[in-house]
């Protein structure tokens, strides 16, 4: 009673901080609406990879290499599932406080999804972005599994039509371990709302500690994959006849189907990354509609302007560029911000995939650099600007300022003081670290593979096509 009285008299914020150490974290409660949302999100992110990405990529290669792309994507999906479940999840989402590199990667306490001791921890929970709102950890594990898989699959776009299948298998085992999981840890491993509120002393990921924002993986997924693909493209060198023989997409129909499924599934990716079925998931959805539409149209229009005709490939490329760019921004920016971001993304990526690419002359088969790396970087930086409430952004929640009710932290939590320079700097640092880690890590992975299996097929096999030479099948027997 007296305590209450004082609390009322003093400045509440001070009172709160004062109260903080005393107050404790809320119990995590799981809502079935959220569980359902995350089940679905997981399912449709899988849809993005198979058949989505497989078709988007496959349609752009020549008939003789179609199956190789499909096989690579599906095999990666399968391998990544196991790698993630067996050890990569643990590397990404456990604390590394016990070793010196905790801000780079976690530990092995949750290998085999925490089933080592044979028990089935069905009811383990993790916290969403709302304090006290829980989610079953295995669902989180499955959701993140699909991210690991699609990121790995995206990377191979850089060196399609010439890589050995054995190299792909090795890549799917090593790369998520050495490159993806650590970057996921750096960007997304943090103490969670309650942890921050209670001033947890756990070691968060490096990039998270910069204060860099990445709502759904612009950095973790797209920059990482884009850079890895680019490095691979350089290492393997150009396809035979690149620039001389025509290499038109063998089926833009399939590419369009793939792009459509990417858009559809991307709502699980972006809105799902909210981990909760609330207003922010809806904001992410709205932005994923608007930015994507804007980017598709802006690419189409600049192409119409500069190349004379609006092409389907241009339109779908813009759509994907928009999806990439809005990924880190989806839950942070407002719809108007998404509109602007989309328009810019379509134009910037267009120039990277046309003018700049041909100027530099590298053979990034499916433009994973021009679209994913560039779009991801653009999105990451733009997020730092457009999150600004003054620009219609949603602002940044400060979990150190959550309300305390009878000694327990709870919603609402306060907003972080926004400063554009600071935020942009944080975003830029995040981008740089990601680019560096992905470039170096991928290089290491390719080198190991090159030594053991070799990376590229023989000239003869490449000419015959990977479908027959590597898989002994033909895509179409009409």
């Amino acid at each position, binding site marked *: 009673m007296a305590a209450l009285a004082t609390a009322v008299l003093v400045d509440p914020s001070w009172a709160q901080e004062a109260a903080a150490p005393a107050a404790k974290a809320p119990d995590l409660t799981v809502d079935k609406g959220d569980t359902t949302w995350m089940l679905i999100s997981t399912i449709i992110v899988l849809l993005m990879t198979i058949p989505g990405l497989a078709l988007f990529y496959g349609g752009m290669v020549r008939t003789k290499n179609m199956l190789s792309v499909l096989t690579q994507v599906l095999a990666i999906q399968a391998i990544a599932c196991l790698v993630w479940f067996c050890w990569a999840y643990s590397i990404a989402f456990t604390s590394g406080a016990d070793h010196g590199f905790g801000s780079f990667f976690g530990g092995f306490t949750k290998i085999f999804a925490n089933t080592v001791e044979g028990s089935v921890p069905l009811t383990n929970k993790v916290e969403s972005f709302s304090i006290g709102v829980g989610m079953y950890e295995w669902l989180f594990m499955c959701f993140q599994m699909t991210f690991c898989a699609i990121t790995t699959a995206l990377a191979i776009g850089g060196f399609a039509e010439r890589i050995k299948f054995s190299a792909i298998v090795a890549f799917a085992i090593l790369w998520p371990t050495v490159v993806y999981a650590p970057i996921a840890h750096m960007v997304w491993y943090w103490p969670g709302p309650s942890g921050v509120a209670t001033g947890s002393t756990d070691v968060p990921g490096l990039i998270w500690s910069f204060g860099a924002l990445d709502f759904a993986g612009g950095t973790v997924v797209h920059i990482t994959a884009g850079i890895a693909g680019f490095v691979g493209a350089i290492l393997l060198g150009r396809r035979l006849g690149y620039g001389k023989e025509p290499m038109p997409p063998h089926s833009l129909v399939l590419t369009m189907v793939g792009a459509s499924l990417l858009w559809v599934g991307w709502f699980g990716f972006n809105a799902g990354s909210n981990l909760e079925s609330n207003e922010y998931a809806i904001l992410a959805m709205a932005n994923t509609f608007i930015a994507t539409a804007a980017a598709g149209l802006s690419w189409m229009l600049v192409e119409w302007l500069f190349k004379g005709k609006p*092409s389907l*490939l241009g339109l779908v490329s813009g759509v994907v560029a928009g999806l990439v760019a809005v990924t880190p921004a989806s839950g942070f920016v407002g719809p108007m911000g998404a509109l602007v971001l989309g328009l810019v993304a379509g134009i910037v990526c267009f120039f990277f995939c*046309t003018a700049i690419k041909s100027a530099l002359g590298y053979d990034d088969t499916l433009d994973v650099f021009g679209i994913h790396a560039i779009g991801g970087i653009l999105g990451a930086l733009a997020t730092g600007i457009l999150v600004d409430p003054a620009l219609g952004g949603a602002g940044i929640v400060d979990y150190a300022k959550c309300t305390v009710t009878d000694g327990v932290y709870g919603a609402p939590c306060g907003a972080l003081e926004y400063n554009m320079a600071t935020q942009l700097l944080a975003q830029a640092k995040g981008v740089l670290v990601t680019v560096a880690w992905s470039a170096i890590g991928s290089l290491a992975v390719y080198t190991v593979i090159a030594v053991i299996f070799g990376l590229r097929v023989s000239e003869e096999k490449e000419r015959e096509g990977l479908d027959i030479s590597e898989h002994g099948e033909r895509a179409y027997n009409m």
Partner: protein
Amino acid sequence: MKMVIAIIKPFKLEDVRKALDEIGIEGLTVTEVKGYGRQKGHTEIYRGAEYEVTFVPKLKLEIAVPTESVTRVMDTITSMAKTGQIGDGKIFVTPIEQTVRIRTGETDTAAL
């Protein structure tokens, strides 16, 4: 007997076939081919890459006919396949020394 080989624009096939029917040509064989010649192709652009497609789709008709009908067949084709625009195609006549109908073993014009 002669083999009349005609290269025509695809959308003219039905007209030609009907016309040949009327002059009693009961059979022919058609192949989808790509032609290169005076008729320009078109340019295709896929992201950065531009391709000059120099070949245009055509149909090749092969018609075995008794020597005496050659001229009539050629005239029929010429008149039906003509649009007056570049790319209408060509007709070539080559000799046939023997002909057999697989089903019956009949030979020469009886085989047509």
